[in-house]
């Protein structure tokens, strides 16, 4: 209990007045002590003197408070604090000691009490001092009076105890029954959940664990051969609702259901649209949602690939503007593609081009599936050696096959129209009825890839090179053959291979082009010029070219070819000559025109470079022009009855042109 009190600390022989003893503070003796100590006794104290001292003390506090009072307070504060701490410590120690003593005494008492019955155990807890003072077993305890609890009270207590027990047992039973009910519901929910999961798996969907939530099952609704972005979004969690039914959770990747829409527009007005399915109702089974998710991700990938491909097809009339892709179908119609959300609205009324739009949409879907199949084929082939170069997946061919087929169709239509017009003119001009043409389409030849399925073979046949052959017999000696072939790489193109039959007189003077032609315009120009040359060659005479013809000879005789293969010349006796030219042209809106022009030779006999073919204002007697047109007037209308004039045959025209006329 000795404390290390520093030497400088003033020690009072009397205890400090304690604040915890307020009653003592008020005792008169305390006041007397204070007066004697502070004022030096009672004799010098008066009331006025005390009031004056108080006033002075207050004035003095204000003046001396800065230094002296502060110093005094600073000196007194730490001392009071220390003393307070010491006092508190002493008090606490006192209490602890008191409690210890009480506990020790109690322990000794109990030990002594127990020493009568269990001396060994009691000895262990008895203090040595007590053992010396008091022998063991000298303290006993006994009941002096019987308990005052009678039999009735005992029975009552028993009944209360029984009641409590029954109450608690009932509570336990209720709890167990609740648990059983809850467990039964849980089992029903789980059974329903697993039943639906099994149904999903049996329908062919791949069910697996979610990688980030190993305890949750998910369904893979996407396509294994899709691009990596879409493969990563193709897993949805199968979450159990409270009633055990399954809810499909696509997480952050989930988006509203979408579908690719194909529309046909003429001058900005829709004339056809692909079918728009409705969104799945909330009450539909989970398989419907899975199917909808699959269709959505398929449409999303299709849209992305279409955009990717459209960037390199700008030169072929494909435009990607805002959120739509526009593709030209023909001169008036456009195909518009966009990705739209599914809606619940009533279906649109049928329009004339609905089948075309639906056909294009189905084609795009099939082509994307085919691209997936090609990805699979590429992936399952033995890989090339690692070379540091990253293997690029080529862009899918989605629009190119459609553009190729459209171009091919347009080309065949144009060729057919041209040859039809030619035949019509031939018919008008009473030319040989053998002027026929035929267009045959070569059967599709898919590339010889081994182990290919029928579906792949069909798609390859429809999208690989398309070929058609047009054979036009102009005259009995001249037949033109035009083979049209398509190619998709690097861009959709058509090449035309033109050949003449070997016996044709044109092979010498106007042979077929050695290289394939790449535009229809070039083909058209060749066909028209070749036809005019063939007709000219067909009306030449067998007599030597430098023979002069008698003026009375028939008009058809004596014509010979000149340098220009579509021009004939006839020299009458006396040296005067005539030219006869054959010419085809075609103008938009007015169809095909065949002109035969004849005029007198105005220049040197041997100079054919300035043959004039019909400047009307310079025509003189014996010159003229005749023309035939295909059966289409301007505006594409047929000739009405009574319109036009009687058509002469080519033979008659040549006959008239070749007769001598005195100028």
């Amino acid at each position: 209990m000795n404390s290390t009190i520093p030497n400088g600390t003033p020690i009072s022989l009397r205890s400090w007045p304690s604040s915890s003893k307020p009653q003592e503070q008020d005792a008169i003796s305390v006041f007397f002590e204070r007066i004697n100590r502070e004022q030096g006794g009672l004799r010098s104290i008066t009331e006025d003197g005390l009031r004056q001292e108080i006033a002075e003390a207050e004035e003095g506090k204000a003046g001396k408070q800065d230094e002296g009072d502060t110093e005094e307070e600073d000196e007194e504060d730490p001392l009071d604090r220390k003393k307070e701490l010491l006092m508190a410590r002493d008090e606490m120690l006192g209490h602890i000691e008191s409690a210890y003593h009480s506990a020790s005494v109690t322990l000794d008492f109990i030990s002594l009490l127990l020493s009568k019955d269990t001396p060994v155990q009691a000895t262990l807890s008895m203090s040595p001092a007590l053992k010396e003072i008091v022998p063991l077993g000298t303290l006993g305890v006994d009941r002096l009076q019987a308990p005052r609890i009678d039999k009735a009270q005992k029975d009552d207590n028993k009944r209360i105890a029984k009641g409590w027990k029954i109450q608690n047992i009932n509570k336990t039973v209720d709890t167990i029954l609740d648990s059983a009910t809850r467990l039964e519901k849980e089992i029903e929910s789980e059974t329903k959940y697993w039943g639906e999961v099994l149904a999903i798996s049996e329908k062919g969907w791949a069910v697996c664990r979610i990688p980030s939530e190993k305890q949750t099952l998910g369904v893979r609704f996407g396509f294994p051969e899709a691009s990596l972005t879409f493969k990563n979004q193709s897993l949805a969690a199968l979450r159990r609702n409270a009633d055990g039914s399954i809810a499909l959770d696509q997480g952050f990747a989930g988006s509203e259901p979408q579908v690719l829409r194909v529309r046909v527009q003429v001058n900005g007005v829709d004339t056809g649209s692909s079918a728009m399915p409705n969104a799945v109702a909330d009450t539909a089974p989970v398989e419907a949602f899975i199917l909808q998710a699959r269709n959505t991700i398929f449409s999303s990938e299709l849209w992305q690939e279409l955009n990717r491909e459209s960037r390199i097809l700008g030169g072929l009339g494909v435009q990607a503007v805002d959120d739509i892709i526009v593709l030209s179908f023909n001169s008036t119609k456009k195909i518009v593609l966009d990705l739209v959300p599914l809606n619940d609205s009533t279906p649109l009324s049928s329009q004339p081009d609905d089948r075309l739009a639906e056909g294009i949409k189905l084609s795009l879907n099939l082509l994307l599936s085919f691209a997936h199949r090609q990805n699979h084929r590429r992936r399952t082939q033995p890989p090339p050696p690692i070379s540091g170069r990253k293997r690029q997946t080529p862009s899918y061919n989605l629009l190119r096959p459609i553009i190729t087929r459209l171009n091919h169709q347009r080309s065949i239509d144009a060729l057919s129209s041209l040859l039809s017009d030619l035949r019509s003119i031939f018919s008008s001009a009473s030319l040989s009825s053998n002027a026929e043409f035929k267009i045959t389409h070569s059967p599709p030849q898919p590339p010889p890839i081994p182990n290919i399925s029928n579906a792949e073979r069909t798609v390859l046949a429809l999208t690989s090179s398309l070929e058609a052959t047009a054979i036009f017999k102009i005259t009995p000696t001249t037949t033109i053959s035009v083979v049209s072939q398509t190619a998709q790489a690097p861009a959709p193109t058509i090449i035309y291979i033109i050949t003449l039959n070997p016996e044709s007189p044109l092979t010498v003077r106007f042979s077929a082009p050695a290289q394939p032609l790449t535009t229809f315009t070039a083909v058209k120009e060749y066909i028209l010029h070749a036809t005019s040359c063939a007709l000219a060659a067909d009306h030449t005479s067998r007599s030597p070219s430098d023979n002069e013809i008698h003026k009375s000879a028939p008009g058809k005789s004596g014509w010979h070819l000149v340098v220009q293969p579509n021009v004939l010349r006839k020299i009458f006796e006396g040296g005067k000559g005539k030219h006869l030219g054959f010419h085809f042209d075609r103008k938009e809106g007015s169809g095909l025109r065949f002109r035969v022009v004849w005029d007198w030779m105005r220049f040197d006999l041997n100079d054919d470079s300035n043959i004039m073919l019909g400047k009307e204002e310079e025509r003189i007697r014996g010159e003229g022009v005749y023309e035939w047109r295909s059966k289409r007037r301007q505006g594409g209308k047929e000739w009405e009855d009574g319109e036009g004039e009687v058509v002469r045959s080519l033979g008659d025209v040549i006959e008239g042109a070749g007769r001598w006329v005195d100028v």
Partner: protein
Amino acid sequence: MAARHPGGQQSTGKDITRHELFLTTSVYNDDIPRAVRILQGYCGMKPQASLRRRLVWEGPRQRPGLRDFDPAFISRQPPGRAEAWKYLHGQMIRQSYIITLIYEVERSAFGQAQIHGAQRSSEEVPDRNRTLSCDQSPGTLKWTELPDPVDSRTVNTRLMLQIENEKGLCTVIQSIGYRFTRQMIQECYQFINGNVLFELSRYLQLPEDVDGTSQTQSHFDSPLPAFEHLTPFDSQNKWVLTISANVFNGKDQVQMQQGISELMAIKTEFEGCFNFHMVGRLTLDTRVKIIG
């Protein structure tokens, strides 16, 4: 037709050989269905099953026996393939090797001798002028160098050359003095995952006495016995699962490291399922010791 390497790339000029990186493990026959299912799920494809007839040829054991290829044969080859033959010639003129010729066979090709009767009797002398039936089928010639020293490597690596889809290989290999030693049938399931090829194979040997004939030079040309008569090469009928990746240039550390990383990643992923490991380089030594 140009030489093709695994992956179907055409070789040009010096780009003839490849470095093959591989690891192997063994699989018991009873575990094969499970192994196939695991690999099918891992690679996302159905197994490509095949049967291959492997004819093993050994080079001469004496230096004078090393012969050149027929120059006319090489000159007839298209440019890319000719380079491959020239390279092979350069290797085989200075060192004798064990070369394997591999032919894809259909299951229906087995047992034709039993169906159509014995093709030859024991007295019949092989006719050297007879066209070998194996020459009429396109085959693959595979040459491998001794695997590189292990050192700090974690996968086996070796130089390799394959000439695929070539007819007349047996005649060509015989013309340079190589002799047929044995043949075996490789039953294989193949899977592909990225740049790595998984081959699950077992090797079957033909019965020793086929129609009473011993192993003559024409034995490799004989019709195959019934498939049921083949016996596993391994006494425990174990299969070998090999994962391999080919590298374009073995001296390019970046390419080699990419191949090694891919194989090691697969090894780690399959820990506990398949124990892929390296094999001693001398077990795959294809060099023939030249005595004289």
